[in-house]
Each structure stands twice: as C-alpha cells, then as structure tokens.
C-alpha cells in the first residue's frame, strides 16, 4: 500500500495484481509495472525504505524469472 502510494505519487504507472500462482501460493498482492519505469520505481522504493520481498521479470513465454 505504501509502495502504491509512493509510485502513483510520482506518476509511475503501476497495477496492483494478485500474486501470480507460479511465484507464491500466498494470498497477497503484487505490484506490476513496465520495464521502462523499473529502475526509477525501485530507486524510489529503496529511498523510502519500502522492503521488497522479491522481484520477478516476466519472460517471453509469460514465465516468471526471479531477479
């Protein structure tokens, strides 16, 4: 929630999505964003001490790869 507020405040386009099943069976929420704004977003979150649990990139076949 804090990450959403920070990122949207900076005008970074994001989506809150259910955590994809391949990643975790958790009942949580993840933030999906474009590769273009990735660095800016992570920099902002780091600056504001939002802890990031895990970071994944969606591969060509829609598969998730841990970064």
């Amino acid at each position, binding site marked *: *929630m*804090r990450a*959403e*507020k920070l990122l949207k405040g900076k005008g970074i386009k994001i989506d*809150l*999505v*259910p*955590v994809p099943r391949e990643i*975790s*069976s*958790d*009942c*949580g*929420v*993840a933030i999906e964003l474009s590769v273009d704004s990735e660095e800016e977003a992570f920099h902002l979150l780091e600056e504001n*001490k939002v*802890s990031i649990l895990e970071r994944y990139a969606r591969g060509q076949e829609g598969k998730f790869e841990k970064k």
Partner: protein
Amino acid sequence: MVKEMKIKKVIYFDNAATSWPKPPGVKEAMVQFMDEVGANPGRSGHFRSIEAARIVFETREALSILFHVKDSSRIVFTLNATESINLALKGLLKPGDHVITSSMEHNSVMRPLRDLEKKGIALSIVPCSKEGMLDSREVEGKIQSNTKMVVLNHASNVTGTLLPVEEVGSIVRKHNLLLLVDAAQTAGACPIDVERDGIDLLAFTGHKSLYGPQGTGGLVIGERIQEKEMIPLKQGGTGSRSEFEEQPDFLPDCFESGTPNGVGLAGLLAGVQFVLGKGVEQIRQNEMALVEMLIKCLKELPQVKVYGPENQGDRIATFSFNVAPLPPSETASRLEKEFAVLCRPGLHCAPAAHRTLGTFPEGTVRFGLSAFNTEAEIDTAIQAIFQISKEG
C-alpha cells in the same frame, strides 16, 4: 428508557469512557465500508480486498501523522488500549526484569503488572501527590540495575492530571530503558510526539478522543524496540507468507493475526481525519476553556470538592468531584434523572488512583468533556450541581 432520554436533550459528559457523539463522517465511512467494500484486507488480490487493505493502511498513515511516527508500519492495531498495554508488557518483560509505574494508573496497567509480579517481574510504584501529580525525580530514584521499563499514563482517567511524560522520557533515554505510555485519555486530545517525548511504546484507543468506534486501538512500537524480540499475544493468519506455518517476524503483521476490525478502522480513519482537520491544539484549547469555567464555578460551592491539579495547564478536560454528603452514585443518578447529564461515578477502573486521591473506596463523580460539548451544556451542568448541592 431510550425514549425518555430523547425528550430531554442529553448532556453527555462520559467522554472519558467513550466519546459521543462522533464527528460527521465516522458513521458514513463505516456504512460505506459495509456497503461497498466489505472484504478482508490483505487476504486477496481482488479490488475490494485491496480497497479494504488501503483503508487499514490509510488509518495507519493518519495516526502516524498525529503521533509523529516516521514509519506507519510501526503502528499495530488492537482492540483497545488495554490490549496494547498487555501486548507491550507481556511481549517485552521477562522474569528478573524490574518495571516502574505510578500510583495513578488504570487497571489496564495495574492488573497485567500485578499478574507479571507473580511471574517474577519486580514492580515499583512511585507515589503521586493528592492532586495526582508525579515528580519525575522520584521515578529516577527507583531505577535499579535490572530496570527495563517505565509505564505511565499520559493523563489520569480520574482527575485528568497530566503526568510529566517528556521529563520521564529523557530520564528513560539517559538510563537506556523503555517508556510505555498509556494514552487512552490523551490521544487526540493532547499533542503527542513520540520522538520529542521519548516514548518507545504508545498505547492508544480509538473510541475516546480519536472519535472512532469501540473495538479499535493500537500500539506504536518505537525504533529502539526489536520487534523480533517482542512476543505476540496471539499467532495466526496474516495474509502474508501463507506458505509458512510460522508467524511472520515483520511489522505490523507479526502482531496482527486474524481478520482485523476493518469496518471499525474505516470509522477510526474518519475520526482521526476529524482530529487532524481541527487540530489537536485547537481541540485542547476549546475543551480546556469549558472545563476551566466549570471547575471555577464548582469550586465556589462549599459542598463540592474538586479533585486534581490546581494549575489548569496540568490537566486535560476530565475531572472528578464529589458533592457532600452525597455518595457519587447518588449525585450521578440525580444528574441523569433530573437534568439528563450523563457521567460516571465510582472508581473508574482505577483503585490505585483513588487511593492516591483519598477517595477509595467510595470514588468520585467524573465528567469527561469532548470536542462536541458546548458552553450552554456547561451552564446547565453548573445549575444542576448547584441545585443538587443545595438540597444535599
């Protein structure tokens, strides 16, 4: 009974127990939560669950502004101040530790401490004056090598006397101890800055001066506390790290198991927004103007004894009195039946405080004001007490 009360306009002076009325917006926020949100916060990715989580998060954020907490995840929600105090005491104190408190505490502090005492935690109680005042030097005098924590109420729920939290805060820092403050009576009614005041643990309730519903409250856990070393009161589902059967160790989830009071927190958010909008200083100033007027008039009645500090700056807008020779319960009952003034007689769950004041076991009559009381209500109350004291 309810009908009868509707005929006369009720004057509600029992705000120190639960504030009434609530500001416009509180009830509406709760209805909106029930009608349009209604889902379980943080348990799913659908928009209603996300919206519920957002409301819980925004409530934390609003409270972090109010109490000057840098990281809102260090505020955990509980049912009330009592649960928060229990979490802080039982989560951090171990057999062999020593804890210091005052003789003006509510049973929300005294009862868990008395229980811990049986389990090998040493307890020192610093006596307060008959006005309920605490000399911070006496707190320092009680510190010993195994002292871990000082527990103080910010203001007495009986006399409204403010305790010198900031002074004790700096003593506590100097000796590298922890300070737990019971802010049940002051959160929203008195400025609180956990940094400035040196507060490590701040227990607050939502249904008094934060103008939320009952069943909401929380504990601010300061950065000097390692949350991993604090034992939760309960374990269970948090919506996070569901693949593990062990309790998560990060804030706020480690202390927030089970579905929270989402609808209550939606109401609390509206209440806190009201307080932030009006400003704590402004609310305090208005309440103090009314209570000072009331106390000044009551002190002129020879049959009335008012308890609490002489200097009005040392109090909040809650105070106790008695009308001789009537017992408190009779005064309260006459105030209600003849004048529709609602208040609370007796011991106010604070036998230690009443012993300090010399009013144990009969107790006192207590008035607690809120941001919604008016000068006209104060005038009526003065007339009512004048009448009762004349008839004796």
